[in-house]
């Protein structure tokens, strides 16, 4: 049963928001992901993911201060909701279970191969 849906990129985004804690808005998220995972992130992909997460109820957003460098446009800060936290937990647990279920021999074989 698909209780909590979280795509790969969405998971990265929500984890990053967790890392940034209170300072998460699109530019900071983008920078954080790019520096930590050394992959480029387009605004398009990021905003789509943020919007989806918000629609799912995992994130909530609020308007922040507007600065001159943003030409007077406010920042949109993101925060993880209780449901978002559950979804993250769920994603982690399912992964862990899968990890545990993998027979040890697979690793050995891989190591030897």
């Amino acid at each position, binding site marked *: 049963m698909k209780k909590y849906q979280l795509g790969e990129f969405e998971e990265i985004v929500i984890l990053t928001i967790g890392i940034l804690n209170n300072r998460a808005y699109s530019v900071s998220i983008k920078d954080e992901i790019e520096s930590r995972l050394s992959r480029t992130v387009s605004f398009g992909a990021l*905003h789509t993911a943020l919007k989806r997460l918000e629609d799912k109820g995992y994130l909530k957003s609020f308007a922040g201060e507007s600065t001159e460098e943003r030409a007077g*446009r406010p920042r949109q800060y993101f925060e993880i909701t209780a449901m978002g936290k559950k979804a993250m937990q769920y994603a982690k647990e399912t992964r862990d279970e899968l990890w545990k279920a993998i027979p040890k021999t697979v690793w050995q074989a891989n190591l030897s191969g």
Partner: protein
Amino acid sequence: MQGYIEGDLMEAYHARREKYGKRKADVQFIIDVLLLFRPGIISSKKRYSLNSSYMIGSYFKTGWRNLLRSKLHSTLNIVGLTFGMVCFLLIALYVFDELTFDQYHVNAEKIYRVVEHKNVRGEATIIAAAGYKLAEESQHSIPEVESTTRMLRTGRANLVDPEHPVPFQETVTIADEHFLEIFDFPLLEGDRRTALKAPASIIINEELAMRIFNRTDVMGKSLQFSHLSFPLKITGILKAHPRNSSFNFSSVMSESSFYTADFFKETMASDWASNSFSVYALLRPHSNPDSVSGKMTRLVLSNYTPGDGTKLSYSLQPLKDLHLKSANIFDGARNSNVESIPQGNPLYITIFSFTALFVLLIAAINYTNLTTARASGRVKEIGVRKAIGAMRSNLIGQFLFESWLTTGIAFVLAIGVVHVVLFPFNQFAGKQLSLFSVNYHFWIYAMAAIVIIGFLSGSYSALLLSRLKPVSLLKGLKLTGDLSVRTGLVIFQFTISVVMIIGTLVLLLQVRYLNDTDLGFNKDLMVVIDVNTRTARSNFETIKDQISKVPSVKNVSVTSRVPGEWKTLRTVKVRNEGSTDDPGISYLFGADKDFMKTFEVTLLQGRNFREANDSSSIIVNETAARMLNITEPSGQTVEIAAVSRGGDFETLEVPFTPRVIGIVKDFHFQSLRDRIQPLILAYNNNPIHVIDYYSVRIAPVDIPGTLDKLKAIMVRNDVDDPFEYHFLDDQLALFYVEDARRQTLLGWAALATIFIACLGLFGLATYSTEQRVKEIGVRKVLGATVIGLVSLLSRDFLKLVLIANGIAFPIAWWATNRWLQEYAYHIEVSWWVFVLAGALAMGIALLTISYQAIKTARANPVNSLRSE
């Protein structure tokens, strides 16, 4: 969201510019923007739209201002819609009333009338009647039948209060104890479970109580029918029947009154297949009436064997079909002097429903036409709205809201108008319609119709106006509009108007024809007096003599029926004596020797009845003579073997074998709907039908005085006989009273349609002349005449009305011809009706347009050209 993204882009740009320089930052910016073109981000219109509930206030404000700003157009719109809705509501109330006949019984859906289908050697009768045992046994042996009730109307008799014996001729209605359980005729007093249980009980309605006792608290009092030996006790007071009830009895006595009578005990035990009772069955929920009636047929056939060549079966007719779907079912179980239950005409229900819808539609079209035509005045408004971000859906919402606002105002006004005109309308339609006590279903339908009309009338202009581009709107581009749609709608309006005008004219001519046709007898100044008692019947020679001595009486005759009869005429099977042909069917009534003189019926051949007993002579009409192959009356003997009082033919114990002594010219003894049928006039003391009427031709002087004298004579001869009389011409007019009503109703509807259509035309003409005001100015300066300009402005519209005429004529021709087929004697629709209707429509349209056209054409061109 867009705001945030813009900010993000700016911020990133700034950062990159610091880091990599302008060029690289520019390129990256473009890439970022391009990568933002994603469906998830772009199609976020929903979030951006305004909360529409806030907008309603604004819609209302602009709509209202708009109404006030252009008073002429608003008035045209509202008046047109109000007019349309008044017509719609009145007709809808009428139709709704007709469609909900007998629906007020709680069990109406489950009550069925038993109808007998009999076929005796190819001669089929369908009669709403059945036998005693069918009713009695089917409630025991057919599980789906919850209960049944029997009712019969045995004739008319005097009902008197023994304490104050004043006779009242009333129909004797008898029913069993289940009658009030199955039907919900409301009782003001009395217990409905027991009221008809005890022998010698009677329930009467409040109106009859008022007539007899002058009060309604008469429970327990006694009443007596003149033909019965025992008095009846009043056990219940019925409320007056609502107008949409098929039942019109004023009293019901208990069937159990006869249980001890010998004739009852003898006949009813074996009465399986007679036509003595109207039987109504209450079925259990979800029963299939067809299978129940099949069981009834089997039940009867297992106990009764029909004669040779006779097929017998039963069907169940739903109670709700009684009023409109009983056209070929004979209302049985009644004496021939009791009127059958009144019938509605489904054809007219259809015609009226369509009329109501069309009137409303025409009013809606008006709104559409006026609004689109006037839209050029609002082009700037729409442009500004669009420029500051109104979406198409907002504008559509706004225009629809405006049309609902107009429709709503019109609706409120219409309710007011209907409330005022309902009283005269009821008077004329013979109904008791009311806006506020009508079933809520009516309101649901009416509201739905209003919402739909608001939607229809607003939607076209809403779609058209919201489609336009804001730039062209603000530039002040002229609205070309969809002229084809508008002209199409005008043609449609006038087509309907012309069809309705033609329909009304034809109806008018037909009703006039019906009233003026030479009936073959003289109906004027003829007083017809009912003979209700045995004394009045047996003393008829004396009474006739006394009547004829009244100075203002010209002639007097006794008959068993009169031409234009409202009670059932008897029919007989007749053939030449010794012939083996199948007998023909002819009407028959008794008449004395003064009949022809009094009614001014022409004797073609042979002789009249003579003073001496001529009881074995008959006179036939031309149609009957043709049927019997008689060219010259010379005392041919015919054989009359069977007689019918409306239902089955009963064979006479001794066949009546009279001689034909004369032939009269055909006269219309029935309504003009029916072709003249064979008719036999038998002598007044014939064995088939006793006399029932005095027909008195009076002089046109002091008619009330004459009536008083006639009454005195009747009372002197029989105190018990109430003086009941009719004027024959009034009675005949009753045949066509419904036609006259329909004619008036349709006439008004036609007037309303043409009026509304003209309002619309007026609005359009105003608009189009306004549009061309400059053109007219230039033309005038260059020397155009007023007449030339008027014809220029009117031409386009008249073309539309002409096209409408072209479409309307064949439709009207087809429809009126179909309707006229209802009448055996009818007018031919002549060409001038069409020409008149067309000319009328043209004339009215021309008048409407020319007002505007002349005004514009006469205006000083300086006024219109000055600003250039």
